């Protein structure tokens, strides 16, 4: 397993000094942050007990965006749940689609054709870039660097343009299906993606140039929210948070899916495990994603015209063209949409999402009604870690901690 290790020097001790000669010292105060607060990235509420400016206890209150997704899956059925998976972690809709589709495929026991897998890898990596851009845009705006927000959104707009050309909508694309993807990439999209891939590394560099050595960014992130690998394991953290602490564990390499084992990419890891490390890891992950996208595009060029959907009329939708012209296919389409029956049993599949391990645990009893669809949300674990990281720090560090952990409330609350 090849991996990148960042080396950078640090100076000084960044631990906060308890304000003992402060007149309010020793008089605890309860402060409510949220659920509508610009720094909480959505509708998270934090009840913070302060002594002076030092946080003593933090109680994250989630559920302000609990939309009942798991119940929805149980009442709608396997196929109709797809649009709801987009809206889980809404900064990376296609990643959630793929995760859910992979879990359903495990349950059904079908494999996606090679081209379908490559398209999925391409979409998942674009989603990762999208999600990390939201991280960098919103966190930097919270820490006072407004320009980065505009830079990040300019790049996101380009991905939106690609997805728009590809699927007809900017976000929440619902593009993946059980057994593959809905339709193939055409030349227009390929050209757009290639243009994006050519331009993006320079733009990531641009953001890094503005931030990495920026005094404010560096001071507000360095030494804030330090996590050891043991902490990460104990608190169920995964993904970039885990890798920021120095453990090179990536599900794409460790438990590969969708043919990730055949791609060439590195896992960036941090050394200290603070918010700054996590930032560096995410920036490098974007570059690695671009690298994977390039390989995927090369493969897609070679396999032009091949199937992107497996042919299996028990679980997989027939192609749209066939539905319009053949009665049998129309019936198959109708049956799959309204009454898809996955085999009895249970299956868990996890993908490496931009926030960590995004898992779907599905239980079927062989009828068209799912028994259980549990979504293992990495974001919930990240929120859970806020009190661990924030305890004893100053209130103003909270913004950096929340930003560094990176979660999206749609997925935390489900």
């Amino acid at each position: 397993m090849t991996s990148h290790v960042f080396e950078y020097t640090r100076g000084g001790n960044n631990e906060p000094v308890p304000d003992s000669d402060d007149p309010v010292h020793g008089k605890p105060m309860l402060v409510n942050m949220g659920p509508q607060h610009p720094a909480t990235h959505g509708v998270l509420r934090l009840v913070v007990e302060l002594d002076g400016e030092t946080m003593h206890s933090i109680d994250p209150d989630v559920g302000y965006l609990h939309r009942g997704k798991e119940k929805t899956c149980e009442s709608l059925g396997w196929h109709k749940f797809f649009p709801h998976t987009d809206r889980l972690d809404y900064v990376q809709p296609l990643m959630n689609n793929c995760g859910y589709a992979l879990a359903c495929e495990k349950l059904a026991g079908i494999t996606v054709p090679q081209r379908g897998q490559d398209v999925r890898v391409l979409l998942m990596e674009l989603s990762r870039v999208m999600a990390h851009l939201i991280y960098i845009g919103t966190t930097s705006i919270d820490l006072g660097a407004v320009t980065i927000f505009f830079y990040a959104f300019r790049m996101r707009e380009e991905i939106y343009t690609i997805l728009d050309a590809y699927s007809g909508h900017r976000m929440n694309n619902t593009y993946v299906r059980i057994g593959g993807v809905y339709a193939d990439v055409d030349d227009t999209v390929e050209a757009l993606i290639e243009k994006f891939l050519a331009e993006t590394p320079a733009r990531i560099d641009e953001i890094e140039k503005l931030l990495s050595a920026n005094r404010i960014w560096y001071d507000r992130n360095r030494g804030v929210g330090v996590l050891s690998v043991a902490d990460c394991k104990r608190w169920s953290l995964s993904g970039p948070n885990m890798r920021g602490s120095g453990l090179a564990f990536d599900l794409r390499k460790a438990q590969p899916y969708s043919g990730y084992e055949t791609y060439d990419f590195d896992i960036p890891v941090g050394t200290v495990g603070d918010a700054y490390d996590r930032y560096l890891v995410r920036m490098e992950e974007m570059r690695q994603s671009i690298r994977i996208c390039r390989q995927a595009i090369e493969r897609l060029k070679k396999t032009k015209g091949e199937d992107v959907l497996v042919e299996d009329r028990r679980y997989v939708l027939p192609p749209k063209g066939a539905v319009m012209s053949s009665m049998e296919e129309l019936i198959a389409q109708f049956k799959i949409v309204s009454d898809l029956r996955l085999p009895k049993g249970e299956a868990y599949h996890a993908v490496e999402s931009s926030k960590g391990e995004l898992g779907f645990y599905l239980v079927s009893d062989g009828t068209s009604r799912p028994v259980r669809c549990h979504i293992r949300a990495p974001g919930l674990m990240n929120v859970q870690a806020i009190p661990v990281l924030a305890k004893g720090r100053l209130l103003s560090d909270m913004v950096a901690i929340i930003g560094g952990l990176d979660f999206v409330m749609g997925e935390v609350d489900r």
Partner: protein
Amino acid sequence: MTATNTRERVAAALEGLTFELVDTRDGMLTLRVPSATVRTVLERLHGRAGFEQNTLVTAVDRFPEEPRFDVIWQFLSYDHNDRVRVETRISGANPSVPTCTDLWSGASFSERECFDMFGIRFDGHPDLRRLLMPQGYTHFPLRKDFPHGGIEPDRLYREWDAKRRAEWGANA
């Protein structure tokens, strides 16, 4: 991460305890254990088999069967790069299982969520409150006998609203 290795390791760790292997579609090692020994099983998995991370704690409602709830734990070992799933069946009347937050701190929110959604108590959990639904809510949404549209979904809001209106009327 060969399945046999995991099975042998787990079997060695659980020596002397009864468990049953369940056939699953994803091929993950899945143990069905009686609810009386589930705590011991979890302790052994943590201590002896080296499962360092809790991935999820959830439940499956088998209503109208009785015993009704399947409680599911799933763990990940980083050193061995493998997973294990533990299931136990408990009854629907006053359902409870022992907590595992002292072994894996990260299970805390998952257990709270499971309590919130199914009403299953995790004995020994330090702070067992509702996680997602508001604190005054009285139903358990993911139970199968709970309708998708909900039971009085707006009750708490309406109560709050009525109180607020009454206050304004008094102050004016």
